[in-house]
């Protein structure tokens, strides 16, 4: 047994042992699974995806019908997941940054209120919030006849939130193209201004121009597009609102729970990021005579952002994964329609689980690829 004292031999031995062990376990499971499936009479394969689903999806923007294939059902689930995630990401970011900055306020009341919010949402399970909004708040809303009326165009009741839809979307398409061009122009302009300042030292009001280009003009474009078309405003007919678009209560509940919950975590990330900027940096900037606004813009934000972005990205990722909590209140996202309804209808457990996990892993890989790219670009060069 003398050769066992050689480290290289032992290294190889350990790895061979681990590999053999893992392979044995996997083979054991796969053999059992195929045995069990033969006994249960389940055929494996992905042909079931092209079968008619026959499953109703009460909330979809893909135009899905029960006579469509299971693949179309899966696509509807993916779109619904991304829809609620996108809406919640936007609101969670806004609320999170606001609360995070509030926590840093020197005003004791303001920072305490923010701290109470953060400690409240972070210490309670997300599922609690989802159920609370759905069964506690939304089911206690009035019937359609007694809806909350927002300016006569949007109506909130226990069947959901009815909002108006434009009859003609060409105007909005044009506005969207215009906005993309404006954003492109702003990027080019900012590059040019930066280069000129580096060359000649002359300042250019990039932020002011940016506010007009990416803030005011897009709003104007959207307003113009909205004015150019007629609107399908929901109205009470019989016992319910017809017309417009109905955001079902499942969507509203999941959206509220996800955005308020994630905002608590984002607030902590923002606070940590800003606190990571050393006081000396701020003092030095002040000593150079920079105005408070410039201290924040030129010194604090550029140093805080690289600290904030990676954890915030993983919060976004968590939010997307957490949108699966919608399954608990039957919001038709991936897990509910595919791992739930489609699995019950077809019995193809292994295939469906593999596809579902594959989708989430793909989204995760895409987001972390972006994160790595961003980190590589924005790494603070320490000297």
């Amino acid at each position, binding site marked *: 047994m003398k050769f066992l004292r050689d480290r290289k031999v032992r*290294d190889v031995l*350990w*790895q061979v042992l*681990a*590999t053999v062990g*893992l392979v044995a376990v996997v083979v054991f*499971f*796969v053999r*059992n*699974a195929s*045995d*069990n*499936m033969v*006994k249960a009479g389940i055929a494996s394969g992905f042909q079931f995806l092209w079968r008619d689903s026959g499953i109703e999806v009460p909330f979809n923007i893909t135009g899905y019908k029960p006579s469509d294939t299971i693949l179309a059902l899966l696509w509807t689930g993916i779109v619904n997941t991304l829809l609620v995630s996108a809406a919640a990401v936007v609101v969670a970011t806004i609320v999170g940054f606001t609360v995070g900055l509030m926590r840093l*306020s*020197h*005003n*004791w*009341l*303001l920072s305490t*209120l923010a701290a109470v919010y953060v*400690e*409240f949402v*972070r*210490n*309670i*399970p*997300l*599922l*609690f919030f989802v*159920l*609370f909004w759905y*069964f*506690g708040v939304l*089911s*206690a809303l009035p019937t359609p006849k007694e809806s909350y009326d927002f300016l006569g165009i949007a109506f909130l009741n226990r069947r959901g939130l009815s909002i108006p839809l434009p009859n003609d979307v060409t105007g909005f398409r044009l506005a969207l193209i215009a906005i993309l061009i404006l954003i492109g122009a702003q990027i080019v302009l900012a590059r040019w201004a930066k280069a000129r300042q580096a060359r000649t030292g002359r300042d250019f009001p990039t932020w002011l121009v940016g506010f007009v280009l990416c803030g005011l003009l897009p709003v104007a474009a959207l307003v113009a597009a909205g004015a150019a078309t007629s609107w399908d405003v929901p109205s009470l007919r019989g016992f319910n609102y017809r017309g417009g678009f109905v955001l079902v209560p499942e969507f509203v509940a999941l959206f509220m729970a996800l955005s308020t919950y994630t905002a608590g975590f984002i607030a902590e990330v923002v606070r940590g990021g800003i606190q990571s900027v050393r006081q000396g940096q701020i003092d030095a900037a002040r000593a150079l005579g920079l105005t408070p606004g410039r201290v924040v813009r030129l010194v604090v934000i550029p140093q805080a952002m690289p600290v904030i972005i990676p954890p915030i990205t993983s919060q976004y990722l968590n939010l997307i*994964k*957490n949108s*699966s*909590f919608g*399954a*608990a209140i039957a919001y038709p996202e991936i*897990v509910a329609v595919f*791992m739930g309804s489609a*699995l019950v209808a077809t019995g193809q*457990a*292994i295939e469906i*689980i593999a596809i*579902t*996990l594959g989708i*989430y*892993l793909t989204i*995760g*890989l895409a987001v972390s690829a972006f994160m790595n790219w961003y980190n590589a670009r924005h790494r603070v060069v320490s000297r």
Partner: protein
Amino acid sequence: MRAARPPLPGWLETLRLRLFATPVDIVVSFLCLYVVWRISLPLVDWLLVEANWRGTSREDCTNAGACWVFIRARFAQFMYGQYPVPERWRVDLLGLLAVLAAMALSWRRLPRRREAAITALVVLPPLGILLLHGGWGTGLALVETREWGGLMLTLVLTFYAGLIAIPLGILLALGRQSRLPMIRFASIVFIEFWRGVPIITVIFLASLLLPLIMPTGFNVDRLARAVIGLAFVIAAYMAEAVRGGLQALPEGQVEAAQALGLGYWRITRLIVLPQALRIALPAMTNEFIALFKNTTLVLIVSIFDLLGIAQAALADPAWVGMNMEAYVFAGAIYWFACFGLSQWSRSREKRLQTAYGR
């Protein structure tokens, strides 16, 4: 230049500086006060002032506030679920044993503390299962796991999933730092896979796949499936928490140990882990809190933990419309447990920092 105004006496000056330093501050402070006023007043009214405390049925709730009578009537269910009433002493006994063990072990001057801890960890988990489940020749009546529920089930899930997840997480973290490529690769795949998928799908997956991949006739208990699913995910997150601690350890520690002629396992056990785990403890506590919060997801496979029981109680025709009461009660328990744990971890962290003079 304006002359500096003389400071107000004592706490008034503090109040001025922290609330009314500038005109903007004054406006903000009053806005905040208004918000607090508008939220807390109706809340206190509903929770306490206008609440109903006495009685036995829904008809006793005549005041406008919360109907705590409902919680009182259902309290035992919230705690034990459908666990048969004559057998509930077993749950209480186990709880008492666990609390006693925890108290004894947290007493720093307990003689042979290390051995006692190991004994408790070896004896308590199987004893707990025997006591709660019964049968298997223990002389206790058999209580199927589907009758377990409420807070007791939440704690059981957290404890047993944590019991698997913590050691597994440490092993995975070590594996990820290993210099053997095969072991490193396997650990990375395991960690990234379970971290990449939603816990809800894992619980689904465990309840659907575990019966499928086991030999025919070998039945994995429904509850055990949920525990395994939870444990795997949390182990992956735990591994990342431990890795933080491992990476924070100065290289010199391992090199010095190697120079002394210690082998890998001894270095890991005596040098690396004691220090790394101490550094990683706050992050690990966070993952443990996440585990506690995520046990609620077993609702999806019809296992009724505390939140599930609260949810199920809403369907009782004798207590229609008690949604808020049920949620507030369950939510408060979760909040106090999680907040308590995180405060404990914070105070410990502070104590260690002062102990090391950092």
